[in-house]
């Protein structure tokens, strides 16, 4: 599972890279709203990028529960598992 989460995390960070300044440090602990200076619309656009990349839909109520990059990756992992 750790391997899969790591792969998801690498993918998520890559997607985020073009939405934030180049020198922004992104880790699993990074808070998506608080630490990255993204407004709520930009966050939802980023979530759509993640959905496209991993071919899934993250329900809005699930998005509301996610605060950090790590939590987002766990949500993606869980939803991918559920889809199998």
């Amino acid at each position, binding site marked *: 599972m750790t391997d899969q989460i790591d792969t998801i995390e690498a993918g998520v960070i890559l997607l985020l890279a073009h939405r934030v300044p180049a020198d922004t440090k992104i880790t699993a602990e990074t808070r998506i709203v608080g630490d990255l200076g993204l407004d709520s*619309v930009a966050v939802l656009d980023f979530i759509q990028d993640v959905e496209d990349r991993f071919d899934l839909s993250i*329900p809005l109520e699930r998005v509301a529960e996610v605060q950090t990059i790590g939590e987002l990756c766990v949500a993606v992992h869980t939803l991918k598992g559920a889809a199998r």
Partner: protein
Amino acid sequence: MALLSKFDELRGALQALAAGGRNPFDVRFEKIVSATEGVLEGRPCLLFGTNNYLGLTFDQSCIAASVSAVRAEGTGTTGSRIANGTYGDHVLLERRIAAFYGKRAAMIFTTGYQANLGLISTVAGRDDQLLIDADSHASIYDACKLSAAEIIRFRHNDAEDLARRLGRLKDRPGNRIIVTEGIFSMLGDSGRLREIASVKREMGATLIVDEAHSLGTRGKHGRGVCEDLGVESDVDFVVGTFSKSLGAIGGFVVSDLPDFDLLRVACRPYMFTASLPPAVVGSVTAALSRISTDASLGERVRQSSGKLYRALAQEGFALGPEPNAIVALKMPGKEVAVQFWNRLLDEGVYTNLALPPATPGSLSLIRCSISAAHSEAQIETALSTMIAVGRELGILDSEPKKTPAHAVERVPA
């Protein structure tokens, strides 16, 4: 921690906005002179940000009907539709709206916001999935919060993305309910309803379309974008408002669903609020009659909007994707947008300032709404003021374009 400290960021943003001149959320008209003119800061101003698309707020037949109703039935109903708040005129208005749309039934709500809140939160149950356009109005998002269903956003106006998301749900139980809009309120772009209706037919779903900004402004009979694009039979529920083209307040839902009336005793935003007062029901019934019998209102707003849109585009403004009764000017940034909006007001032209996060794509917009009541001279004044301010702020080239502003009629479609 102070109770409202959670809004510290909001307070800071508001203070920064007000520092640019006026507080855009606290504009006070000292007088409303007509559907297109007001008095602000002691000076006359042209109203280009009202959603008064057909200019019916001062229509004499609507005013007379409203006055007559308030004299006959009083100032308020003092109760909800399911208790003491249903009068004969509420039922009559519902029949008239249903007939206008050629649908079996209609329900009216006290606001358009409540119409979306009520319909969406009630029809979407725990095991269902709501698929909403990402650029949906706040009332649709709030309805989703009130619903027990799973909420999935699809990319704005992207039928392929909708189809992909429906495809991912293929083995799941529950009803799929798609929600989109006729015209989107910020950029004034139309919903791609043909493509979305086609996905709905192929994949099986219920389709709700909010025509708040398109009632009266689109379609041969004024029924909106669904009529204009020939998809009315694919749409299960049309939601709309009385607060824009019909010049009052209130909302409605129309449908052919056989058990539609059951919603009256299941829909909490319908059941637990006071019904529309007689004066509003009176003016809305008259306004509906006006638009049913006078297609020239819709035609006029389309002509005026097209003219303004094409002239602004010709001058070099970046605009929303198509001409509709909403014409949105994309500003190069938030500060410029605030300056532009303030300068237009200085010059006597009121528009709407729309900033992130209330806008799609984090755009900063000057949002104009055009009315059938705007005269050619008023459109011309608004246009020349926007061009002058655009040059002053460096958004447009300082040299006039070869086509003079007064020649907008000659600009090709």
